[in-house]
């Protein structure tokens, strides 16, 4: 093969890859038919961390103590011992709740239960699974090899590995539906939604929560609103409060295909540490590329046949050359 042919082949292959990917691109996944999730309203959160300690109770994890703050769980971020955490936003003198300037507010971090989860897409061993009906993303350590691709493939850095154990495993929020807990299957709500004293963390079907979030976007700042608490389909109580000035943004409606755990706030999400996500999920791009190159292994098989033929022909030539 001449150099020109080689170049042609290289460029041809490149072009083929490009065309193939644009033809077979897979769109974002759609929400599961009965997707359940949570709505976190940052403006209701008072930072009491009742949800954090309830989560530890459900998952049998010890409190994390930061410095001498021994009175309560002072975990600062998600870790293998903290699957749900409340973080604080502060600006300037931090006096006004829910104000971007000179204000403060609280933000929850836990698995977002993505509609198109990166962790599920990248896991080689199907150790991350998304329930077809509820959309809940669970982890199955029995088949996990610990490659930690789920950690780098999650836009929110949610899965955490137990680095400090020799025989560690990945830990993440499984929306209280992990084997042995199964609160959702039993018709209960998540531990954090149950423990939340303000209704800031609200449990329910994704559709209903999205509707509620849209309703709150429409409310007039300053008027009174009865915020449901617990499970949106059957609130155990209501919390009456003056409506704040919401940012017109429901995090999780569309980001990277959307999430089942959604957030609303009166401080913009980039200030609250949410990642810069576009609407198209990275998982869908990765899978599009992978499947266009490897659709049914047809391309590799074809390439192998061609290579085998060429190599066979050329090794024969060499052997003849050697014999002379």
């Amino acid at each position: 093969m001449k150099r020109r042919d080689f170049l042609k082949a290289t460029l041809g292959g490149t072009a083929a890859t490009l065309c193939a990917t644009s033809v077979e691109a897979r769109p974002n996944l759609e929400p599961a038919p009965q997707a359940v999730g949570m709505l976190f309203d940052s403006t209701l959160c008072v930072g009491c961390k009742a949800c954090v300690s309830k989560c530890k109770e459900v998952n049998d994890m010890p409190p994390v103590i930061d410095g001498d703050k021994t009175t309560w769980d002072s975990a600062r971020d998600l870790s293998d011992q903290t699957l749900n955490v409340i973080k604080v936003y502060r600006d300037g003198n931090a006096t006004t709740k829910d104000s971007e300037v000179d204000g403060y507010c609280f933000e929850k971090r836990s698995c977002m239960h993505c509609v198109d989860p990166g962790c599920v897409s990248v896991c080689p061993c199907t150790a991350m699974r998304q329930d077809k009906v509820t959309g809940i993303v669970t982890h199955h350590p029995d088949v996990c090899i610990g490659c930690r691709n789920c950690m780098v493939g999650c836009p929110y850095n949610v899965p955490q590995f137990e680095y400090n154990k020799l025989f560690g495993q990945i830990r993440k929020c499984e929306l209280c539906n992990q084997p042995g807990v199964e609160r959702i299957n039993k018709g209960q709500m998540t531990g954090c939604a149950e423990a939340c004293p303000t209704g800031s963390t609200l449990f329910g079907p994704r559709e209903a929560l999205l509707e509620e979030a849209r309703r709150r976007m429409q409310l007039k700042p300053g008027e009174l609103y009865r915020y449901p608490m617990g499970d949106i389909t059957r609130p155990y109580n209501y919390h009456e409060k003056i409506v704040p000035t919401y940012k017109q943004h429901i995090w999780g409606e569309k980001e990277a295909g959307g999430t089942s755990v959604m957030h609303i706030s009166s401080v913009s999400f980039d200030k609250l540490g949410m990642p810069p996500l576009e609407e198209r999920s990275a998982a869908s791009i990765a899978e599009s590329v992978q499947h266009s190159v490897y659709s049914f292994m047809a391309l590799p098989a074809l390439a192998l046949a061609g290579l085998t033929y060429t190599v066979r022909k050329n090794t024969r030539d060499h052997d003849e050359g050697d014999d002379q």
Partner: protein
Amino acid sequence: MSAHQALGGRIFTKPFLVLLLIFVVGLVFMVERFSSGMGAVSNLNGGFAWGIWVVFDVVVGTAFACGGYALAFMVYVFNKGQYHPLVRPAVLASLLGYALGGFGAFFDMGRFWQFYEIFIPGNWNFNSVMLEVGLCVAVYIIILALEFAPAVLEKFGMHGLLKSLNKVLFFLIALGVLLPTMHQSSLGSLLIAMGHKVHPLWQVDHMQPVLALISALIMGFSIVIFEASTSAVGFSRKSEASLLAKMRQVIIGLLSTFLIVRLLVLLVQGKLGLIFAADFASLMILLETALFAIPLVILLSPERSSRGSQLLIAAMCMLMAGSLYRFDAFLLTFNPGPGYSYFPSAAEIMITLGVVAFEIMAYLILVKTLPVLHREERAL
């Protein structure tokens, strides 16, 4: 009679003992990793789940080990018989590089005791790039071992086996070209799913596999040049510069394709401005581009590329270019979000150095004891 011959000579030379020392230090930390866990020896964290073990040992290391791949391409597919003498040493270097990349992946594996779960078809997730990389690399290590087997069989005079192996060798070589094409491109595809965490200048989405593959081939060719030139010095063998200079046409093609494709992608994605943002990332991409461009300048001049020293500079630039490209994308400009940072611990570095030291020691022992290097090329 084989065309290859063992180099012979003393094994425990001074450089060898230095390597041995590095390996022993690395070994101590490896023992620590498998007794106290990964947290005890590494600085890996929730945001940087992949450190130098993955990025250097696997992603960069296997690209370094693409010499066998690049040569198989030249010799068998493009029918350039004159490179034949270089094949065996290149296959050996590739085998060692990949085997140790596999080993690196193993001690980086959080749940190493059940590594076999990835080989169980019932577990396979066909959407996962990692699955393709894992399986493909595992099979390729076996293929490389079989490709290298003739050297061992010749040594021990097992001619029957040698004959049967030679009969299927053409198929193994074909696989030996296909498999690296698959997983070297997939190593790039791993970046796609990391989305925003990969710096925009390196997040080229669909073109990730193309750039990864071209740069792997570039590294493969340069490691062949590099190995041949250094062993020509180190083992006082006749310089193979004249042979190698002929590879230059192909390398020129690869280098220019890489630079053009990358430029076009950034142009289409509207990210060209970021190159001149005068921040760390822009500095790194300029450095990379220079490292890809310098060898191009050298190789484009027939006069320069006929000189062994210039060829060596070109090869070293290309190795650095490909390595830096991978390091930048996976680690140096990788940003998982606020609150996370990573710098490898001394133990992580020592384990990696130990692995590299082992690789070089094994190479030295094997070329001295097995018929690896080509007979005619030997000086008297």
